């Protein structure tokens, strides 16, 4: 694949716009709330699109197309089971506490509800994880552009980091959110022609089905037992592991996405943020998974080989090269670059908030002026980007280190939702219970990993490093069941420890726990504008999609 001048011009125009948005927003950044929370004045349709865009990174786009080629429609479970239900839940039931408590971050909610140690544990792991994720993204993206176009990895990393640095340091969270919305439209307009052209060439839905392996166009048909589908997972592990533990753990507690809703202009807008985001989210499988499936139907096996092995990550590059002439190719690549950069910006803006409010203000320098924290936010942005670049280079040189770190963080993340669920809906849950539950859940996840192994893997980083007492049919089954295990450990431990420790008086828990919080009133809203109505509509369409593509 090679680029013409027109492609470079399209990419250059995009970069200029991104910087221009940062410059234009700078004059609105007067207080730390402006910088870290967009002054809480963004309308719901914008925060809603940013809510899903923050998660729609370039790696996800390429990875989901690859997964479409590898597993077919089963991949849609990551949306229709693994995202939408959690998005409905966070909007309807959790946003009243996140937004209503006026917490400025997810860790800060834990401080209000439980105690300082629980907040610090969450803040430290989140800060590390975000930088790590940002660095890995940067490395992977630079690698993609090197393989596709022969770009220098150093140049890709440094240049994109500079652009992101400029616009996040200037415009803070608003800049990040605006660019996420821009990226959302770029992805749609940059990828949609690929979806249309590839599916029609593959013979439409039915024509494609005849050319693909059996069961490829179904989501539920093979889930009766793990042997009947290529993911090697059965319906219970899918629903509980992906649909409940992993999905709720991400969409309901990860500050990267929740921060978008916290920036909304009022409670109703905050509640509607994930619900509005859910509408386009439901249809993203048609944009990125289905073209991956079409690619498998169109290209012969030889086209997929890298060093003699089938490489499904080629799905998107193959389609780009087949259908896009110079011009549209620039648009498609700009969409990938944009989602890569806005993903980085999302990580960095979440990092600078958690660092400034949850670590710096609470442990290093409390009671400074607001201006001081605004300055600290800008410094944290620079440091966060430099640290991400560092993480990218570590990933480039020691791939194993990154694998281990990601594994450890997956242990940390798995139990999180149990803590939030108990914190929000059980007033008896205590700080000691939450803290020990989280540590215990993480330990439980690590133990599970050390004791099990998936088929065809050798003991080590893939599991079974203590001794393999149980074997799973696939990596995915191992991941999903590991998450279920960690969640249950945390849930039970938190309850047991809470029952033997002293609860906080109810008077301190108003606005933080379901039974002690006044419900937002919707009486003044037309029926169609109420969050619950939107949730019902989203729920029905999701069920219908699951049914149609069963």
């Amino acid at each position: 694949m090679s680029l013409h001048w027109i492609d470079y011009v399209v990419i250059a125009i995009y970069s200029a716009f991104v910087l221009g948005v940062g410059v234009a927003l700078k004059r609105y950044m007067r207080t730390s709330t402006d910088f870290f929370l967009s002054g809480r004045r963004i309308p719901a349709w914008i925060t809603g699109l940013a809510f899903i865009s923050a998660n729609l990174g370039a790696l996800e786009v390429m990875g989901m197309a690859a997964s479409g080629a590898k597993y077919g429609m089963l991949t849609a479970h990551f949306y229709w089971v693994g995202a939408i239900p959690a998005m409905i839940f966070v909007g309807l039931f959790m946003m009243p506490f996140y937004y209503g408590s006026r917490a400025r971050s997810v860790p800060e909610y834990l401080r209000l509800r439980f105690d300082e140690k629980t907040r610090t544990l969450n803040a430290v792991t989140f800060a590390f994880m975000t930088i790590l994720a940002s660095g890995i993204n940067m490395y992977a993206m630079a690698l993609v552009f090197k393989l596709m176009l022969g770009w220098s990895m150093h140049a890709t990393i440094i240049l994109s980091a500079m652009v992101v640095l400029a616009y996040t340091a200037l415009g803070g969270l608003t800049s990040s959110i605006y660019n996420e919305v821009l990226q959302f439209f770029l992805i749609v307009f940059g990828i949609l022609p690929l979806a249309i052209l590839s599916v029609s060439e593959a013979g439409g839905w039915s024509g494609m089905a005849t050319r693909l392996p059996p069961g490829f166009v179904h989501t539920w048909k093979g889930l009766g037992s793990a042997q009947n589908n290529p993911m090697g997972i059965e319906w219970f592990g899918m629903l509980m592991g992906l649909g409940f533990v992993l999905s709720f753990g991400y969409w309901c507690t990860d500050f990267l996405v929740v921060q978008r809703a916290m920036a909304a202009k009022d409670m109703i807008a905050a509640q509607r943020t994930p619900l509005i985001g859910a509408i386009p989210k439901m249809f993203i499988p048609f944009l990125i998974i289905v073209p991956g499936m079409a690619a498998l139907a169109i290209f012969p096996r030889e086209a997929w080989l890298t060093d003699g092995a089938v490489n499904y990550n080629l799905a998107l590059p193959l389609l780009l090269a087949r259908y896009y002439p110079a011009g549209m190719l620039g648009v498609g690549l700009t969409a990938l670059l944009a989602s890569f950069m806005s993903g980085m910006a999302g990580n960095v803006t979440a990092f600078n908030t958690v660092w400034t409010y949850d670590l710096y203000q609470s442990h290093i320098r409390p009671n400074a002026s607001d201006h001081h924290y605004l300055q600290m936010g800008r410094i944290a942005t620079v440091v966060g980007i430099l640290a991400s670049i560092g993480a990218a280079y570590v990933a480039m040189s020691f791939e194993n280190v990154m694998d281990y770190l990601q594994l450890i963080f997956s242990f940390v993340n798995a139990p999180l939702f149990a803590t939030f669920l108990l914190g929000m809906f059980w007033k008896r849950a205590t700080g000691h219970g939450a803290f020990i539950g989280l540590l215990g859940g993480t330990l439980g996840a690590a133990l599970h990993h050390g004791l099990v192994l998936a088929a065809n893997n050798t003991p080590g980083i893939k599991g079974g490093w203590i001794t393999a007492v149980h074997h799973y049919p696939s990596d995915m089954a191992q991941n999903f069941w590991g998450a279920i295990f960690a969640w249950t450990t945390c849930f039970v431990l938190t309850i047991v420890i809470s029952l033997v420790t002293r609860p906080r008086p109810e008077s301190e828990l108003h606005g933080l726990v379901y039974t002690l919080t006044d419900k937002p009133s919707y009486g003044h809203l037309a029926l169609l504008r109420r969050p619950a109505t939107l949730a019902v509509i989203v729920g029905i369409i999701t069920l219908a999609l699951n049914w149609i593509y069963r």
Partner: protein
Amino acid sequence: MSAESELDIRWPIGLLFSLMGGMVAIYGLLSSDRTFYRPLDTADTRMINLNLSWGLVMLAFGALMVLGAVRAGRKAARD
């Protein structure tokens, strides 16, 4: 739209897509690149000018966004 004085996001989206779409469409008019395309219900294959057609789609989307921003701006000025 958001707080009265804040930058309306429809401006950057609209201008970027108008500019990008317009450029790609003009490039499509002038270049000879054609994309292979087989309509669903027919056996014959066609070549389409993707740059021109999709460039116009993006231009139209951009123009709509700009229109929305202009209207919102007028409304805000009136209130």
